[in-house]
């Protein structure tokens, strides 16, 4: 089995809920200053309150901001993706060992908090909102992008001192979920219009390339196609005109 031992792989391949203060640069540099795109169509949130959704949207659009060619996390539907994940089995702690006693471990021992992902978000979002209001005197969404980034860096480094949980545990979860939402199959609500796949050039789940392997350097740019899109197409084709 092949690990991805690039730094990014080490940071993100653990899935989510990285409670670990991971090594590597904690400062983000050269963020652009584009404001967060406002949410397009009204969304019926399944997990977030409207306030929480607004805060999450503002945060994730700094993590993956829009640029001239490719939209950012909000345009890609990342808040909707996270909302769906938290409302579902993953959010309620599926595939998480939840028996106690809970104790603070070493970074090498991984996530040891008693929170499910849903509980982690619920708890953290309210802490983040209060902390931003206390420190900056306004809502996160209203801050200048530079200050938004500064606040996110404080969450990332753990400097934002929450008593209930380490802020970096929440930040790493949010970051991992944002990347997932930007690059997962669009049937989960993110990667809208396959923007993430188009950005990197990933052709999606329909795949078969053995005849192309030895065409080295091939400029291959087939537009991607998603799972649900395909399933829908299949279902649609199941309605032929029948005559007995």
């Amino acid at each position, binding site marked *: 089995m092949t690990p991805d031992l690039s730094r990014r792989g080490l940071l993100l391949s653990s899935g989510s809920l990285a409670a670990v203060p991971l090594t590597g640069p904690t400062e983000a540099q050269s963020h652009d200053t584009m404001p967060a795109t406002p949410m397009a169509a009204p969304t019926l949130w399944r997990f977030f309150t409207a306030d929480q959704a607004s805060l999450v949207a503002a945060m994730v659009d700094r993590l993956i901001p829009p640029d001239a060619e490719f939209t950012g996390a909000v345009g890609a539907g990342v808040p909707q993706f996270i909302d769906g994940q938290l409302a579902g089995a993953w959010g309620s702690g599926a595939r998480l060992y939840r028996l106690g006693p809970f104790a603070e471990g070493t970074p090498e021992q991984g996530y040891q908090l008693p929170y499910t992902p849903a509980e982690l978000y619920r708890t953290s979002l309210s802490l983040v909102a209060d902390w931003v209001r206390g420190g900056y005197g306004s809502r996160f969404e209203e801050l200048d992008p530079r200050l938004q980034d500064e606040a996110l860096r404080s969450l990332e480094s753990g400097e934002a001192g929450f008593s209930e949980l380490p802020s970096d545990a929440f930040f790493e979860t949010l970051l991992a979920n944002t990347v997932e939402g930007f690059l997962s199959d669009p049937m989960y609500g993110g990667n809208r219009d396959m923007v993430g796949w188009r950005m990197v050039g990933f052709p999606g789940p*329909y795949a*078969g*390339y053995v005849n192309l392997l030895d065409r080295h350097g091939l400029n291959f740019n087939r537009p991607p196609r998603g799972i*649900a899109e395909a399933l829908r*197409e299949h279902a649609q084709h199941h309605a*032929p005109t029948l005559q007995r």
Partner: protein
Amino acid sequence: MRPALPLALLLLAGTAAAAVELLGNPPSPRQVASGRAVAAGAGGQGQQGACFACHGFDGAGQAAAGFPALAGQSAEYLHEQLERYASGARPNPIMQPIAAAMTPDQRRDVSVYYAAQPPQASAGARPQGDPALLQHGGNLSAIGSAERGVQACQNCHGPGGIGLWPNYPRLAGQPADYLAAQLRAWKQGERPGDEPYNFMANIAARLTEDDIRAVSLYFASVRTVPRQAGTGVLP
């Protein structure tokens, strides 16, 4: 009669453009025009072997006669088939002399031309058949058959057999007789496999005559609609 070529080029799907590029060149108007001339019978195959007579200038084919649609197939795939007809690797008494009479450039250009034609929305007569047979064909397409040891067609040919270019041809909307004939030819060894993998010869050998009729009918019944952009979010 003569369609406006520049307009046709403007209408090229990104799909077709990229497929052509796989052949080594972006499609030039001259190549498409040259390919159209070959389709009209100006190639080495002559007027008697004019492509359009069976496949149309629009590449829609003739379902009733079992002539397959060429529109929307990748240039790569079409070119490979013409080469195989020409060499006899894909035996066919009609296509072999036609393809062999073309020059390599003509085979390439006519492939580029037909790849550039957008697939036509299917209209008119719908395939008719036993609903149970259609359902069985749909299952083979989407799930495969554990009993036969056959994987789903759409693993390679895309959802509903819409094709996964450059190498996996579109099956959707092709004439049932054409599809069934190919499967039978593979099964009976009359159409050699695609060395070294022999994917289809291997799969067809496992299908029963019933399976062949079912899956051919299914793909023939797939409505060929222009691809809709959509995110396809699951509830």
